[in-house]
């Protein structure tokens, strides 16, 4: 009889007797009683080896009083989960893209950053995307010329590619059709394509799309692009000399922010831009006279585009010079005081509603504090969350949203910024800064998208050699009534 001690986990079992005539399995059975570990799960270590069930005790050479060590648990054996885990690396490329939370960049094909940044900014408008996908269904209408059609299709394809891809997309096809439609973009300089003005690209592209996306019925209302971006202005033209006064309306796709010495803020620039002087023949005076033109906004777009008029033709140097002046712009823009009287009246009620909601959010109780207002608030929140989706559905309704439950408030949120860096319009670098649905800002520097902080976006206001805003786009804030 041998007596050994066995160490198992932190416990030591002293004085276990071994009968050398019986196989080790018997010993293991003894240990089973003590530890509850089934013999087949027991691993007993003796001097650098494991004790086999059929081993001979004498061959192992266990001495009296020796310490043995046992390993083993009665634990459940680990099993692989029934549902295999899917790893991001195994996903197809498209799905990886969605995990990233934003779309890919665009390859610079040689001074095409003006185009890339324009495309990225416009792509951030979901309504435009869905309008384009509808275009495929409606097909080409007769009054759209071939090149416009091709450009529209190319835009649609490019938007699609961007959504599917993880890596930067090369917009070759789009660029070709763009140049075909607008030969001015094919200008060469030293054998290279020249840098172009992004604003021109923006305007031309939007114009083309507005032409081709017009519903076949060709009524004014069905112009999708116009519904999204169009601003109706009512102007009062007044001649001081003769006292003549006339009024006219026009529709534009963007407001201009004129930059003069007094302008420090976007709001001042816009006001400035809505006032103008022009010379025209006065029927009363029978000669050309100076007219003052004052415009007011008559209808609001879903997306308000503002162009900073940073470039002007400098005659003495014969080039487009840039105004570096710092013009601040807010993340939240209120253009109430630029609106016409009628529009203001319409906006009044929704704005009051919005104020109440915000007050509530800040913990201020509106005067009529009652339970149902709480309910309303939650409703409002829910609907405002949906607004992104619902607005795509109701996009045909356009700016005149009185029909729906959503109402314009005259308050806009910044969604994208197209910046220019450099000293003249035909040189330098264009970059797009786009707010994602997740609320994050992405800088699209050609093929390199990168995350940015919101406070850095407002720093693009100029005044130095850093990127400065050239075209900015605001999205309307709605309130449900």
């Amino acid at each position, binding site marked *: 009889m041998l007596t050994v001690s066995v160490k198992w*986990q932190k416990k030591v079992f002293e004085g276990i007797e071994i009968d050398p005539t019986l196989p080790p399995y018997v010993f293991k059975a003894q240990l089973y009683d003590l530890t509850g570990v089934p013999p087949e799960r027991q691993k007993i270590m003796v001097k650098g080896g*494991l004790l086999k069930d059929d081993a001979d005790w004498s061959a192992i050479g266990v001495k009296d009083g020796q310490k043995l060590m046992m390993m083993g648990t009665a634990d459940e054996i680990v099993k692989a989960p029934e549902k295999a885990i899917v790893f991001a690396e195994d996903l197809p490329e498209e799905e990886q893209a969605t995990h990233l939370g934003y779309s890919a960049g665009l390859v610079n094909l040689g001074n095409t950053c003006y185009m890339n940044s324009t495309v990225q900014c416009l792509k951030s408008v979901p309504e435009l995307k869905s309008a384009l996908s509808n275009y495929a269904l409606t097909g080409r209408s007769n009054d759209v010329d071939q090149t416009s059609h091709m450009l529209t299709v190319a835009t649609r394809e490019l938007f699609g590619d961007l959504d599917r891809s993880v890596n930067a997309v090369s917009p070759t096809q789009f660029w070709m059709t763009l140049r075909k439609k607008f030969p001015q973009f094919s200008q060469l300089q030293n054998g290279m394509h020249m840098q172009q003005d992004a604003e021109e690209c923006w305007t031309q592209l939007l114009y083309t799309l507005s032409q081709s996306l017009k519903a076949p019925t060709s009524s004014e209302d069905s112009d999708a692009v116009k519904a999204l971006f169009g601003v109706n202005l009512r102007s009062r033209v007044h001649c001081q000399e003769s006292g003549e006064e006339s009024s006219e309306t026009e529709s534009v796709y963007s407001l201009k922010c004129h930059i003069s010495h007094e302008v420090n803020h976007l709001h001042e620039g816009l006001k400035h831009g809505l006032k103008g002087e022009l010379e025209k023949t006065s029927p009363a005076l029978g000669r050309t006279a100076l007219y003052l033109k004052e415009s007011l906004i008559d209808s609001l777009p879903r997306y308000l585009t503002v162009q900073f008029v940073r470039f002007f033709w400098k005659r003495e140097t014969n080039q487009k010079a840039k105004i570096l002046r710092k013009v601040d712009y807010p993340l939240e823009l209120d253009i109430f005081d630029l609106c016409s009287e009628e529009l203001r009246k319409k906006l009044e009620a929704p704005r009051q509603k919005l104020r109440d909601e915000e007050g509530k959010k800040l913990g201020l109780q509106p005067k009529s504090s009652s339970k149902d207002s709480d309910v309303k608030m939650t409703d409002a929140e829910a609907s405002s969350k949906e607004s992104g989706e619902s607005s795509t559905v109701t996009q045909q309704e356009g700016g005149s949203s009185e029909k729906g439950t959503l109402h314009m408030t005259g308050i806009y949120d910044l969604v994208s910024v197209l910046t220019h860096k450099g000293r003249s319009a035909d040189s330098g670098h264009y970059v797009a800064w786009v707010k994602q649905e997740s609320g994050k800002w992405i800088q699209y520097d050609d093929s390199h998208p990168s995350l940015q902080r919101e406070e850095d976006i407002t720093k693009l206001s100029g005044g130095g050699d850093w990127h400065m805003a050239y075209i900015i786009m605001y999205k309307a804030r709605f309130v449900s009534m």
Partner: protein
Amino acid sequence: MAPGPDPNSVGDGAKRDEATIKVPSKDPKKKDDKKEEDLSEEDLQLKQNLELYVERVQDPNPELQKAALESMRQEIRASTSSMTSVPKPLKFLRPHYGTLKEFHKNMAESDLKKLLADILSVLALTMSAEGQRESLGYRLTGSEGDIGSWGHEYVRNLAGEIAEEYTVRQGEEASIEDLMDLVQQIVAFHMKHNAETEAVDLLMDVEDLDLLLEHVDRTNFRRTCNYLTSAAKYLPGPDDMLVLDIAYMIYIKFEEYPNALQIALFLDNMQYVKQVFTSCTDLLRKKQFCYMISRHGITFELDPEMVENDVDREMLQDIVNNTKLSEGYLTLARDIEVMEAKTPEDIYKAHLLDGRASSGPSADSARQNLAATFVNAFVNAGFGQDKLMTVPSDSTSGSAGNWLFKNKEHGKTSAAASLGMILLWDVDAGLTHLDKYFHSNDNPIIAGALLGVGIVNCGIKNDCDPALALLGEYIDKEDSSVRIGAIMGLGIAYAGSQNDQIRSSLSPILNDAKAPLDVIAFAALSLGMIYVGSCNEEVAQSIIFALMDRSEAELGEALTRFLPLGLGLLYLGKQQESVEATAEVSKTFNEKIRKYCDMTLLSCAYAGTGNVLKVQDLLAQCGEHLEKGDIHQGPAVLGLAMVAMSEELGLDMAIRSLERVLQYGEQNVRRAVPLALGLLCISNPKVTVMDTLSRLSHDTDSEVAMSAIVSLGLIGAGTNNARIAGMLRNLSSYYYKDASLLFCVRIAQGLVHMGKGLLTLSPFHSERLLLSPTALAGIVTLLHACLDMKSIILGKYHYVLYFLVLAMQPRMMLTVDENLKPISVPVRVGQAVDVVGQAGRPKTITGFQTHSTPVLLAAGERAELATDKYIPLSPILEGFIILKENPDYREE
């Protein structure tokens, strides 16, 4: 000088004329007049007296001569005591030096001649021309009287001349006996007068340090040995060994056993270690020795000769075997209150990166989960609990299983093995946790469990050899991942043990024609670890054959580099003689691997020696501009760091040289530079190196960036350094799109917070004197793997990161009482000050703070007890320290 009106003047004018000729001044008269005006009455008197003596010395009358010499001696001795300026008597005697010399030459042999020689010897101190060694010459012909009576400066000068003379005589093979007598005298004088450093210098110059043993005494042996050990770092081999030998003997002589043991370990002389044990009779002190040996990480078997009592021996062996390490570490953790397990998210601190980090993707990324596995393992290393792997699997949704399966294929190996890291050093609990994975039917998981067993047992020895028992069966399994798991586990668990049983089972794999390359590579590496620094020829042979058998294509594989590395580890720190034969053989290898092998052998053999010549050799290699894709420059750069890392000056120099290499080197050299910097400053975040690495982490070459990022982790390993943590956080947002770089950033983050800041990776310990060979082996292996990051760490062999476990040690000082129970005492912790060669009892730390033990020690810090109540049994306050109550202590 000028003959002033001297009433006592005797002797003829001719001599006097001769004396005046010696005056270099052109217009002696005028100048002297002026000078005499300046002299005070007293000085004038002295001068006149001396001149009188000079003249009398030349008197034929021996009585008069003798009286004059005696008086002259008196004057000189009276004034040589202070040496701030040339003493007056010497100054006044200057002009007569020639006269006296001349006279001495013509004198007949006599006591008087010797007396004069003595005086001339002293005068030569200021007069003798460079290289003439006149002082020594006259001394040797002099009366051999007490050397110290002439003052310090004289002795010092004499010592210098002896050194010169010695070299000359060595060249001529002339006798040096007379010199040695003088040396005896000088050494005795220096040792008595607190000039140990000068005595040692002299003895080193005349290559007879043994003399020192006779002259050291209780008051000066400590300073002497201090000087010897720090001088050894700058001596070429084998002189350094001799010097340390002497230091060892002195320590033994004065029963300063802990220091003696330290040197014995440095010399890697087990005979000496044994002697320490046999010479010391106090059991408690022996326990302290055992703690020191266990920290060094070598395998050491106590025999009855060292400790007679069986029970005592077993207890001491337990300490050597590190079985109490886990307990001590947890005591520290509890005291510092960091037991709470941390998740990788706690380390990433993504919330500090305002909005930049992408919101958690809905699908798991295998790469990122793998990184999290490593971070979790490193951060919770040794704590026995974490929030991913050890969480009790309560129900069917056992989260432990869950996390394991959130890793993909080979990732599961690392995940299972991470359990070993979390339960590091706690063998019993570790095996319990790992047991269930042995029964899995998924090969990567089994491989991970095997590796985990190896990791748990790292540095811990056990009589039952659980690692060998469990892993032994798996090394010949079919699946190569399982084999690698078992082989690597053995390598880690038995590093430095020179276990024959393992060798006999691993060696055949090396020469097995059917074995896949990766298995062979890991087998070579494990053998290298197990036989680290042993120069074992049989292992070397097996690896050499394995290298020769490799086909051209296999030699191009990334993993092949582990074969030369395994070979190199065998000679770690053993210098030229031992590695010569193997280096010769390596010249016959295929040219693809030859140079790589050469560099690896060279750098390993001289690792930690600080050999300047080898540093230059390696620098020359780095400077070459190669056309082809040669890979040997990587190990050359790493070698630079390995050789130079041993002492501070060489280290700083190496850092500066690496800056140059970075500037002018080729791309493949630049890639290795961050790693070399990482090795030089491992767990020691120097700000300059940090800045360099931070700059490189944004390098356009992604491989440079990757190694810089990993190195940032290495230099900050276990420090929780806030600055590095911030840098890495920013890097994580900078590289959030690049999965490979992000992986490196995560690993580095894990390293910085390794063991929640309680661990260090530094292979140096005991006040930076000792270099743990296994620790260095672990780090070097990882760095070699990092030379080809893409195929190894970013490929499927990421578990090589676990080799770092070999270097992981708590950076603590834990005081225990005589029963080895932790006790808390106040200690001062501050920046260590180099006190070698300083007079008196200088402060050894500066800018200290008082804590109570256990405390953490950062790189370059030293602790000292702030109470007299206890006496530490080792003067080096690191790791486990046994305290004995001070019998003389009185409560105030």
